[in-house]
């Protein structure tokens, strides 16, 4: 008996399966976890910040918040908070470039009270002016103050994405632009809601200890949304990067955050993606000491708190230790993230990271590192989605990427199939060293620019003795040539970011 239970739980870890009379279909993803005393919901609308009209950047994000952080036709926002309060339940919206997901979770005991509140938020938002004012104020505060001044790490990533995708529907962050957000009216929200929140534009996910009746009710209610079209946009075509293109964001900061990268034509699901995931994990597994960049910059030299790399978008990296769900996009970038280093070490840290990346691109992985990393990933991905809500998120992402089966299951399986040759071929095909956008958040921008374009050596001093091999390597890093042309460097005062 125990064996049977074990097989079942392992299956439910990754696979959305049939539930009694209800089955997953093209508009429904069901993930049954009978022992889960809670029910998780994720309703995915195929709309995101790429659908923001020009001049109204941020509208998708604000519209989603007007569903979940505001009144419905049945209840004022205060009444909703009162009703949710004893249930210890809530629902939230998340908007990324291509996805908007309304998610929520309730204990089974409270489902009867929770369910109508959740569905009313989606189906019958009141869309009132005072709620819009409050939400716009929150977003504006985020753009004007928090992102520009209180979070250099997220700031660097936001500027990098904006730079890489400039001129495309991906070319602004999900929260939008300050002047655009301020200009959003109730009519804008109503129009956006009517256009995109339709019965032809969603997939609903339910996970946990639900029953058939609940699924049927949910499907019936969502079928009451108006008829519309299913959004199907082509992936964006970002402008080609020509050499090292540097953006220096100037602000009065004691430390320097760096993000850099380039767009890639590779999405999860393909064998090449899993091959490249091995190389990327070795180079920079997020928030893990197995990261090679972490080892070089933090562990051996103590220059900062961590150094990582990515082949999929990973917002909120400072807060999350595992990859988020439902931020899927059809165009990804390769990205290196250097957490804040002292300003005096900024040039050195940039060189150190680029030198490691260049070596990996040119030489490929070693057999030893390949074996270590694929064994690591085979087990490590078990930690990517421990909760029902997270597994449900992955199941929706599987729909987005049209993955054959489950991404996480495939990830583990691929670790047994992929060879070192596959990995090194994927590196050669999808990574290159020379053409890259580099975003540097720092003070004294002109000084940094001069040092970069002149290839000025960047000597480093330590407060502690370092082993001979590190000092020898330092000599190479200090003068590692970066081919950066004056005309390829632009500087922007932080106060000018995200304005319009």
């Amino acid at each position: 008996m125990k064996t049977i239970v074990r097989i079942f739980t392992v299956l439910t870890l990754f696979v959305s399966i049939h539930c009694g009379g209800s089955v997953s279909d093209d508009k429904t993803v069901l993930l049954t976890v009978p022992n889960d005393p809670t029910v998780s919901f994720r309703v995915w609308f195929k709309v995101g910040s790429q659908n923001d009209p020009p001049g109204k950047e941020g509208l998708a994000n604000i519209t989603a918040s007007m569903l979940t952080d505001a009144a419905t036709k049945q209840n004022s926002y205060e009444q909703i908070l009162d009703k949710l309060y004893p249930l210890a339940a809530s629902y939230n919206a998340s908007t990324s470039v291509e996805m908007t997901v309304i998610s929520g979770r309730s204990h089974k005991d409270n489902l009867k009270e929770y369910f109508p509140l959740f569905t009313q938020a989606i189906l019958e938002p009141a869309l009132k002016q005072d709620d819009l004012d409050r939400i716009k104020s929150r977003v504006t505060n985020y753009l004007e103050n928090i992102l520009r001044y209180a979070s250099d790490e997220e700031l660097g990533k936001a500027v990098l994405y904006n730079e890489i995708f400039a001129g495309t529907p991906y070319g602004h962050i999900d929260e939008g632009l300050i002047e655009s957000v301020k200009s959003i009216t109730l009519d804008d929200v109503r129009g956006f809601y009517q256009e995109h929140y339709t019965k032809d534009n969603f997939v609903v996910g339910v996970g946990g200890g639900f029953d058939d009746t609940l699924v049927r009710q949910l499907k019936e209610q969502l079928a009451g949304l108006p008829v519309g079209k299913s959004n199907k946009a082509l992936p964006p075509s970002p402008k080609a990067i020509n050499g090292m293109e540097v953006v220096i964001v100037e602000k009065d900061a004691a430390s320097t955050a760096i993000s850099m990268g380039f767009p890639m034509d590779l999405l999860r699901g393909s064998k090449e993606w899993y091959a490249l995931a091995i190389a990327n994990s070795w180079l920079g597994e997020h928030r893990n000491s197995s990261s090679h960049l972490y080892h070089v910059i933090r562990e051996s030299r103590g220059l900062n708190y961590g150094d990582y790399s990515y082949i999929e978008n990973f917002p909120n990296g400072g807060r999350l230790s595992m990859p988020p769900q439902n931020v899927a996009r059809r165009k990804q970038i390769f990205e290196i993230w250097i957490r804040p280093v002292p300003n005096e070490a900024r040039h050195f840290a940039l060189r150190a990271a680029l030198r490691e990346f260049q070596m990996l691109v040119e030489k490929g992985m070693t057999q030893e590192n390949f074996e270590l990393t694929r064994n690591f990933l085979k087990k490590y991905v078990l930690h990517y989605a421990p909760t029902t809500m997270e597994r449900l998120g992955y199941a929706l992402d599987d729909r987005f990427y049209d993955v054959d089966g489950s991404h996480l299951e495939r990830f583990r399986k691929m670790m047994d199939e992929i060879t070192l040759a596959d990995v090194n071929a994927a590196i050669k095909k999808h990574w290159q060293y020379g053409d890259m956008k580099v975003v540097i958040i720092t003070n004294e921008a002109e000084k940094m620019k001069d040092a970069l374009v002149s290839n000025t050596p960047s000597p480093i001093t330590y407060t502690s003795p370092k082993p001979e091999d590190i000092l020898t390597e330092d000599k190479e890093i200090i003068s590692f040539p970066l081919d950066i042309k004056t005309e390829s460097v632009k500087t922007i005062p932080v106060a000018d970011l995200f304005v319009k």
Partner: protein
Amino acid sequence: MAGSIFPYEYKQEVLPNGLKVIMIPMDSPGLVAYYSIVRTGSRDEVEKGKSGFAHFFEHMMFRGTKNYPGPVYDSIMTTIGADANAYTTDDLTAYHLNFAKDDLEKVVELESDRFQNLSYPESGFQTEAGAVYGEYRKGITQPFWVLNEKMQNLAYDVHTYKHTTIGFEEDIKAMPQAFEYSKGFFNRFYRPENVVLVVAGDIDPSATVTLVKKYYGGWEKGYVQPQVTPEPPQKKERIGNVSYSGKTLPIIDIAYKGDALDPENTDYVASLLLGDLAFGENSDLYKKLYIQEQKVQFIGASIPMNRDVPLFEIYSMVKSENDLDYIRDEVYKTLETFKTNPVDATKLENLKKRNKYSFLMGLDTPDNVAGGLARLVAVTGGIDIVDQLYGQMEKVTPEHITSAAKKYFVPERRTVVVLKGVQK
């Protein structure tokens, strides 16, 4: 366990050397969470110039032993694909790993080894000090970081809660010189009587105990309790201001000296509920200031669970500097109301229900179970406190809430700090 709010049966064992291990079998798909909870945090940093050391030491615990030098330790962790990390707070340091159940013995061996045989060269120690300073630099760009530093420094005179967990900046700068001190820190605090293991997930308790005895049995006692100076009662209100070098909306933080965690202290238990009732997201004041008047970006309260006297705090980010006094006065008015008017009984019952479901819904993975218990385990030494605390909360009446408001939320216990951004 009939009558218990904690939904899992657990087993507990104390080794002769004082090491306690709490085992919580759960239906989890082959996964185990393993927490080593050291009952030492920044509270225990009593020596002058050594603030931030508990946190710094947490970093050093990843630097290896003679048996498993740092790179070897890292390599094994990589091989077993563990999700491993650690954190430090005022009252505890927790080392946590999530891994596949087949790797349990290797984890017990590695964890027991570093807790008994940590060994690092001075150069590695000094390098890690750089990473800690990097963590400080990362944090100091956040207004709340600056605010907390100021608040703790102003509210406390002698108790070690005067400094934040990462420590005073001048002490962080001086860390590379404290190599000898660090060895003493390890010898005094990293002892079995001061550590509790919580192992949750797909485990067999008796097999787990056997492993723990095998690998930790030889660990010698030797915990030296630090002499933390109690904070004398505050006599009068303290007011402070602090500047944030960037741009931010102003933040007001109104703090009151409270009481340490004690389930038998009805005023303390009632105050845990009072914070939510007065300033939580369905409180009258939250609705007034955030939803109706829209004068604040947020308002909330924090009533923490600590070993010593903590700060009960009410904080708000205010949209206009001109409204700071108004918001402060609204907070005071709300507290006065709670002192004189018994809270609505239905609201109180709703909060109790919310707390129960919030607790239960949070216990969904081995990591969330072990991690959710870490502070209670650190502060009290075990998890009996869970039932004691929730049992006492159930008994709280509107009169208890009134009593707590009168006891704690008085001017002589109060410290107020306002943070403003330099850039406009």
